[in-house]
């Protein structure tokens, strides 16, 4: 089945997900939200996960952070398996992996002040020194572009962009190594989106963060990520560096996705033709069925397809695929 190149096992890999499956049972039916997803993140890298709603990208993020127990598959963090840890063991790890949520309204407790929200993680991890907590909170608030005076206020007093900054401050104060950002900008206004993206970019450089960036806005993902994985119906169908993916999309679903992005360019828009992807119809070769796998076509460029059609479609692929 899926074999990723051997370099993933080297030391600078921070997170490795292998054959992750997450099925939700509802009565007799089984919803295969994530099936056989494998990828890895190097230290300091931003990996973007894109796909339609319901394709399993959020579930993947939530499983990694331990909100769900995976049905099968393994998750390695710094070379150590983390998906089967007990509660106590996991807690020690938890501060190193933080999450930023999509909706800044529902992810902040309306009855807690900003100071309480941001410092809660430290308290839970047993920091008792009040002055240390204070200095850390103010430092982090400043880092995300909020003032010291904001600490005593409640979330409802802030605009959407500022609330997202609070969410980021709460994540950053734990000095995490990995941040899972689940659609951090899609609920924000255009002008504020850029502020938050710039902030994340800034923090990434300053703190050396590794980020799993989950989003559906392709131009933002392209701008922000080093590598991108495209998900469709619970599977990664294509994975490549962001430049490569946008320049040479190979999987028909990726092509259809890329052809749907509206760009601020009227002449281009008048000519843009949306490519339709109907798996199984139109004589499309099957790119999704059970007998398909990810194959490395170019360097670091993986496409899901059936083995027997790989060569005819993409020429001779890389042998370690």
């Amino acid at each position, binding site marked *: 089945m899926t074999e990723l190149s051997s370099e993933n096992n080297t030391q600078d890999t921070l997170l490795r997900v292998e054959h992750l499956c997450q099925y939700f049972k509802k009565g007799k039916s089984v919803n295969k939200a994530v099936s056989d997803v494998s990828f890895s993140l190097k230290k300091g890298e931003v990996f973007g996960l894109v796909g339609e709603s319901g394709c399993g990208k959020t579930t993947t993020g939530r499983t990694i952070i331990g909100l769900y127990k995976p049905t099968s598959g393994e998750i390695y963090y710094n070379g150590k398996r983390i998906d089967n840890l007990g509660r106590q063991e996991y807690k020690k790890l938890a501060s190193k992996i933080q999450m930023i949520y999509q909706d800044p309204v529902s992810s902040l407790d309306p009855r807690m002040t900003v100071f309480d929200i941001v410092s809660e993680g430290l308290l839970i991890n047993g920091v008792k020194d009040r002055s240390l907590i204070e200095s850390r909170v103010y430092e982090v608030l400043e880092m995300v572009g909020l003032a010291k005076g904001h600490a005593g206020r409640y979330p409802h007093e802030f605009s959407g962009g500022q609330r997202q900054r609070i969410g980021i401050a709460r994540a950053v104060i734990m000095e995490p190594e990995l941040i899972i950002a689940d659609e951090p900008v899609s609920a924000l206004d*255009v002008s504020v989106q850029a502020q938050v*993206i710039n902030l994340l970019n800034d923090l990434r450089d300053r703190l050396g963060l590794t980020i799993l960036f989950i989003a559906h806005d392709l131009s933002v993902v392209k701008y922000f990520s080093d590598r991108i994985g495209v998900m469709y119906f619970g599977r990664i169908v294509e994975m490549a560096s962001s430049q490569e993916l946008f320049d040479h999309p190979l999987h028909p679903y990726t092509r259809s996705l890329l052809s749907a992005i*509206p760009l601020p360019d*009227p*002449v281009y828009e008048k000519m843009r033709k949306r490519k339709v992807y109907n798996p199984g119809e139109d004589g499309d070769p099957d790119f999704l069925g059970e007998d398909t796998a990810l194959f490395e076509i170019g360097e670091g460029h993986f496409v899901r397809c059936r083995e027997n059609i790989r060569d005819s479609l993409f020429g001779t692929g890389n042998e370690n695929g």
Partner: protein
Amino acid sequence: MMEAKIRVKNLRVSFQSDDGRVQAVRGVDFEVGRAETLAIVGESGSGKSVTVKTIMGLLPSNAAVESGEILYSGRDLLLTDEREYQKIRGDRISMIFQDPMSSLNPIMRIGEQLTEAMLLKVRVRRRECRRRLKKYMEDLQSAMEKAVALKGAAIGDPEKLCEEFMQYAIKRKQDKKAGIARGVSVLQDAGEELLKFIDGAESGLRYSAGLQAERIRENTDIIKQSREVFLNKEPSRREWEREGKALSKTALKLMDPLAINGDTVIAPFPRGLRKQIKLFFQYRSIDREQIRANILGLTDRLLAHLKELSDSVDKRDYNIEALKTTGVLTELAEGEVETLTAAEAKKKALELMEEVGIPHPEEKYSQYPFEFSGGMRQRIVIAIALAADPEILICDEPTTALDVTIQSQILELINRIKKERKLSVIFITHDLGVVANMADRVAVMYAGKIVEYGKVDEIFYHPAHPYTWALLSSMPDMDTKDKLEAIPGTTPNMICPPEGDAFAPRNKYALEIDFEQMPPLFKVTDTHYAATWLLHPDAPKVEMPAVIRERIERMKERYDGTIE
């Protein structure tokens, strides 16, 4: 410029809140032509949604329309009363909202939701037509009788004529249903009896207009006196309300009951006046001089209209008017006998579902909204919006909640329908990519004002306002590599909007004058306007940011000269 379907003039809307008056819309002008899409772009809080909600008459009760006109088919929607509005809203002007689930009823099958309005509308229309036709015929008959009595005009028995006309109109309708060809206009298949009726109607109309002119001459001075009351520097609410009531009563008395399609100035006058007087006293924070000007404006318009009516009374061609009246009456009579059975409604609904691209409509007809995906739900909402065959379609961020592939499909659908049905579309969004796809013309809104207005190519290839620059450069596109040019700060508090250009505090190109004085709309080309002092001849020359300039250069290269 093609003829405008809808025209918004100097619209100002504010909301009364505990903290003060929130000036949501501060003087907006635009127009939309037939088969044209106007996109309104802006951040949340820029007033774009409030503007279209005003058009739809959906403002909440704490909203005050401080000034402005919304002209649609010869009338001002702001003066239209709720009963009249119900004939326009969802019928002539339809709206699609952002979240399809909240505009659908979750416990009703979608077939019912599609046909509900159709069936209701036909029933209401029948009742309405019957009422109006009956009233008009009675008025006409009595005017004709008086004309006969006065001049002894030989037109036969008015009562009999009216009855015969009714039978003719109903027969015409039945023939149409049965597929028997008839002339397009009344004149084409006019029989002798019908011609007699037209003659009679002519004398009735003339008599009625004469009577009206006489009344106007008697009452003009009374209206002028009433007007003086509103000039009072220390107004009392009781006095104004009493005077307003009296004035309205006088005005209504002056209406010609036989005016075709009603009188569009006198009929809405009492309502407009009452609303303005209420606004004047209800809210402490409101701009009272503006409201006073509105009241005086209303009264002046009424006076001018009355003068025109009384001056033209001998010059009008009553024969033509009688003919037009007959046409309108025929329509009313047709409306009275119009029926729509449930089966016919279903057939129509299925056609609509087919049109908006819902596969297997027969099967989907009896399903519930939750059984559909987001994109399909939005298609259903569009089908409902189209059910009454509207002229204007307002889309308030219809694709923001959808995935990019589905968004693309819905945009294609709206574009196709617009072309096929020659719809005027007002499209609200904050996604500039969507604007580039949909719009013929673009209005960029900021802090309740339109800051730039032009054709889509002009806005994207020659943007002139720093806010448009900022919007364009804050979004990454496929080639962006550098740090994004975020717009610093947030939108201003509209309780006390900044003096001068509202964007100045966030604008790195702001001049000193931007903080002091509001820039007017400067003309860039005949179709392109921008409200920024940078376009003033004395302003220092400022280039648009390098990011956008380079992007536009890239676009130009890509199309090799197709862009000016």
